[in-house]
């Protein structure tokens, strides 16, 4: 029932003669350090450690399972419960509107094009609207990526009101299957930008609000995700830059704070560097 994910933990458990309190504490400590190094929220890690330890020492193994197998099962269940399952997004209705939001530099623009190509390859006619009126070169970035990906881009070079741009873009793409809206980066201290995002979300009335999260993000992930969620109901997460050395533990905090699920991960800068989220693979990488 388990992938290679917990192999080192499993090996330690299997090679030990006896499942006693000392082994349990040692296992919990190993897991704790791996998760902290992977940027999982400190409080979540401490709560998880307590739960694993309590269950391992107090629960009786179910019929047919040795104490060792039971310990392995507990560890696996508790971590996967934190991560949650993936999410299959099936564009329905014309057009299915996805609002891409997130912190500066997290990968929204690149990920919007990756998603566009992912769905267009599966038969959904896709358009992307450039609603970033702040970043120099934002429209050029989308136009160039769109040309490579064969995706239509809508933008207005000299318009400073993103709401106007989005209204015009939605009109242009009204017969498309899928429309992705790329927005400017923002974080929870920028009240004006959060308010703009809230207004944008009201005008767009998106079918999906996707938070693009940088896999390298540290302990601020949960608080930032919560602030976004309070203004626009986050339904899914795109975890970018998983091709580096970061483990993406911040995604767990974002899931915990928003109830959203991780739908996709970004694994590089190219348009095809996108994968559906695989919880087991994620957990395996998390534990190093």
């Amino acid at each position, binding site marked *: 029932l388990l992938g290679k994910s917990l192999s080192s933990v499993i090996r330690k458990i299997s090679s030990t003669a006896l499942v006693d309190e000392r082994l349990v504490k040692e296992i919990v400590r190993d897991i704790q350090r791996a998760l902290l190094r992977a940027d999982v929220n400190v409080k979540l890690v401490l709560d998880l450690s307590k739960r694993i330890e309590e269950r391992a020492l107090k629960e009786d193994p179910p019929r047919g399972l040795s104490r060792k197998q039971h310990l392995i099962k507990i560890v696996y269940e508790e971590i996967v419960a934190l991560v949650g399952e993936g999410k299959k997004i099936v564009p329905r209705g014309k057009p299915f509107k996805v609002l891409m939001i997130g912190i500066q530099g997290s990968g929204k623009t690149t990920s919007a094009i990756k998603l566009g190509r992912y769905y267009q390859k599966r038969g959904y006619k896709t358009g992307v609207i450039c609603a970033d009126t702040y970043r120099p070169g934002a429209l050029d970035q989308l136009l160039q990526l769109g040309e490579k990906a064969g995706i239509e881009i809508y933008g207005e070079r000299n318009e400073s009101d993103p709401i106007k741009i989005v209204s015009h873009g939605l009109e242009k793409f009204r017969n498309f299957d899928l429309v992705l809206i790329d927005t400017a980066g923002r974080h929870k201290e920028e009240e004006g930008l959060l308010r703009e995002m809230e207004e944008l979300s009201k005008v767009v009335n998106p079918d999906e609000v996707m938070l693009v999260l940088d896999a390298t993000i540290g302990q601020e992930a949960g608080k930032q995700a919560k602030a976004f969620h309070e203004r626009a109901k986050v339904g899914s997460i795109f975890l970018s830059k998983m091709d580096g050395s970061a483990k993406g533990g911040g995604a767990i905090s974002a899931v915990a704070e928003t109830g959203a699920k991780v739908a996709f991960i970004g694994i590089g*800068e190219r348009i095809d560097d996108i994968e559906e989220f695989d919880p087991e693979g994620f957990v395996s990488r998390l534990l190093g």
Partner: protein
Amino acid sequence: GELGERELENILWDFQISLMEADVALEIAEDIVDDLRESFMKNKSRDVVKERFKEKLEEILNKAKPERGLLELISEGDKPYVILFLGVNGTGKTTTIAKVAHYLSREGLDVVIAAGDTFRAGAIEQIEEHARRLGVKLVKHDVGADSAAVAYDAIKHAEARGKDIVLIDTAGRMQTNRNLMDELRKIARVSKPDMKVFVGDALSGNDVVDQATTFDREIGVDSIILAKMDAAKGGCAISLAYVLEKPILFLGTGQKYEDLMEFDPQLLIDLIIG
């Protein structure tokens, strides 16, 4: 009175948690607490606990306090003074270059920017717009051109026109990508920069240490700028100061050109302990 051993452990554990919650890397937080435990063993006095924590952080962060400011280093260096900016994707390199160009121009220096990101979509347009707004000369080639050639061109231009500074932008890259690190090494070899600046994202967690140490080992890092400090707690500054002991020149505190402040250890300590 004196701290009991159990009480000391609880205090140290709480401090380690507050460091980690402020984005100090796990192993660094552990090392800091180990150092503190040793010093507490020598003097168990209860009433200077918070002072000792502050002193420890000051001791670490002062290792990253620049001995000489950027303007001083430039005045002592060759002309043109060449600065190469490097770091992983999306940390704020291009925007930071614009801020530094703004800062130096206001000090009366003649700046040239090299559009060294010849790879990413919209990269040249992005820095071109910044250069236009700042009234600063930009040297660029076509998309896909050799980044080292753009850097070389910009330096030659600066030499010919008696310009003071060349700021070289580079594409973001994962420190784990062998080919891209080789490319960066070539850019550094060709441009022979007076200063190599690592631009880190203050929101990043444990990975920032691996990023900076890898860039330092593979390419060399002379100083650090941490962007997006307006969104962060800044523990990464402690991790980097502890591990690299390289000067942190500036903190990026927003998206406008003025949002560049000199690194002040006290500010960071107040964020974390205060």
